[in-house]
């Protein structure tokens, strides 16, 4: 049993390494992982960041938490697209004929996306520092903020893994993921405080885990402007715990579903 887990882990890291190599070989991946974070931070900082005044703080700093959250969640699209792509390429038959752990393809993919996200976060943070974003709450809290971003993104990538294994082509995944990810990241407090949203959208935004993630990250970085009213919804009052609960629930549901789906899909062709 121990040996099996060790082998599954080793196989997963072989697959992950293969995906990581592609960052420098596949231009689309390179652009997505390394270039688009710079653009995101730059655009938001200069287009919105300068135009809205927040008394007692900087809107630019307030935005960073939202951009961090949105970017790592969009990164999950890669998990889906990568798996959909793998399933259609001949390489999957090679994997299936090898005496490797059968879930390594999925575990390796989600693991390599953590590496993608780490790189994206580093680039975003550096770009952020360049345009005036600062960490006000100490290094430990900041590290914890990044860890929380990575953990939630990891859990979320398992949702997209299931989608990627279920769609007939890579193109579908891009459309499907936008339908899910756009509302999730925009009906939230990512760019405007959720208090300003109308009725039902406000409730959705308050209970949306993307909001709690963003709120948690803002608090940990110390990017909440002074004098901002305390949030009234429980998820936003306890954003770290609420985000962790969501991550755990997503993992508990989607890891087994995705692994089973991979085995089915692999056995079919």
């Amino acid at each position, binding site marked *: 049993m121990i040996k099996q887990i060790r082998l599954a882990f080793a196989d997963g890291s*072989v697959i992950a*390494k*293969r995906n990581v190599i*592609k960052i420098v070989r596949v231009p689309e991946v390179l652009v997505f992982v390394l270039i688009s974070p710079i653009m995101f931070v730059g655009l938001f900082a200069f287009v919105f960041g300068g135009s809205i005044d927040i008394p007692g703080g900087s809107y630019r700093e307030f935005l960073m938490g939202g951009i961090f959250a949105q970017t790592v969640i969009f990164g999950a699209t890669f998990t889906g697209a990568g798996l959909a792509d793998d399933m259609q390429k*001949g390489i999957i038959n*090679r994997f299936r*004929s*090898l*005496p490797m752990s059968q879930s390594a393809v999925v575990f390796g993919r989600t693991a390599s996306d953590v590496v993608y996200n780490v790189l994206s976060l580093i680039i975003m943070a550096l770009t952020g520092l360049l345009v005036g974003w600062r960490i006000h709450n100490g290094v430990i809290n900041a590290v914890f903020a990044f860890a929380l971003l990575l953990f939630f993104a990891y859990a979320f990538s398992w949702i997209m893994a299931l989608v990627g294994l279920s769609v007939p082509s890579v193109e579908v995944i891009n459309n499907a993921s936008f339908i899910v990810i756009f509302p999730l990241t925009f009906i939230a407090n990512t760019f405007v405080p959720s208090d300003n949203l109308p009725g039902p959208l406000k409730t959705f935004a308050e209970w949306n885990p993307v909001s709690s993630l963003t709120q948690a990250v803002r608090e940990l970085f110390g990017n909440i402007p002074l004098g901002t009213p305390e949030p009234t919804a429980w998820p936003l009052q306890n954003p770290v715990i609420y985000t962790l609960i969501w991550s755990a629930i997503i993992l508990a549901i989607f890891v087994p579903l995705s692994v089973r789906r991979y085995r089915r899909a692999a056995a079919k062709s």
Partner: protein
Amino acid sequence: MRSFIEAHGLVKKYGKVVALDGFDLSIDEGTVVGLLGPNGAGKTTVVSILSTLLVPDAGSASVGGIDVLQSPKEVRRRIGLSGQFAAVDEYLTGFENLDMIGRLYHLGKEPSRSRARELLAQFDLADAADRPVKTYSGGMRRRLDLAGALVAAPPILFLDEPTTGLDPRSRIQLWSVIRELVSHGSTLLLTTQYLEEADQLADDIIVIDHGKEIAHGTSDELKSQVGGERIEVSIRHDASIRDAVQSLTQHASGTIHVDERTRSLVVPILGGAATLTAALRSLDADGIGLNDVGLRRPTLDDVFLALTGHTSGDTDQADAERQEA
């Protein structure tokens, strides 16, 4: 004694299409068996079932004495597969592809690397080893894929149409690689659409059509059933047809077939080009004028014509008829 690779009554259906219709197979250790059949005959389905990629609707199979359906992972440890379409990662280099496969066979880090280098050299890919596979030619990809099947030096190999789509030079190169492989005692199941390829590489040939075995034997046995080699001659003048038959009888290995209307003769022979040369000398000595002459080797079409009464190219039509029926 049980055979090394065995299958009984394999059935696989895709909706209405019957890919395998009660297929049996038995391969002895250390032999090369060619599975010969036209497109859509069921070759890939057989290979997929034996290499654990596909579960049949009915039937059983064992590889190296291990049940394919009950212990697929045990089977995977002992087999190497090179599928019909090269299973390589385009964005990785040749070396990275083979190294990855070695790691997934759990060979360990150093052994994987040295095995990868060794195979790249053996398959004439050393110069391209550190280039992404994207830049490889079709023949190079095929060789890399074949190398991938050999990483763990498995005792059992499945090669699905290893030379389809290759130019003649690459094909002959690959044949010699495959011959070299099996000289070390591997057991090999090879599928092909070319009788010549099966003839060159296989000890035993199974002819498959519509998911069923329709003939089985050594290449010589099949050829003698099919008619083997023959000379086709077209005579210039009606008057010399009788003389030509007389002149060629000494070279024929069977009955000469005469078509008076087109003034053509079909002469079954043994001995290939040497016999053709001798036959031409006789015709020349007897002063018989020719319009055309050719040496014909039996093709898959001939095998099918002889065994089923239709050529392999007719199968689409046959399929259509079956669907209607």
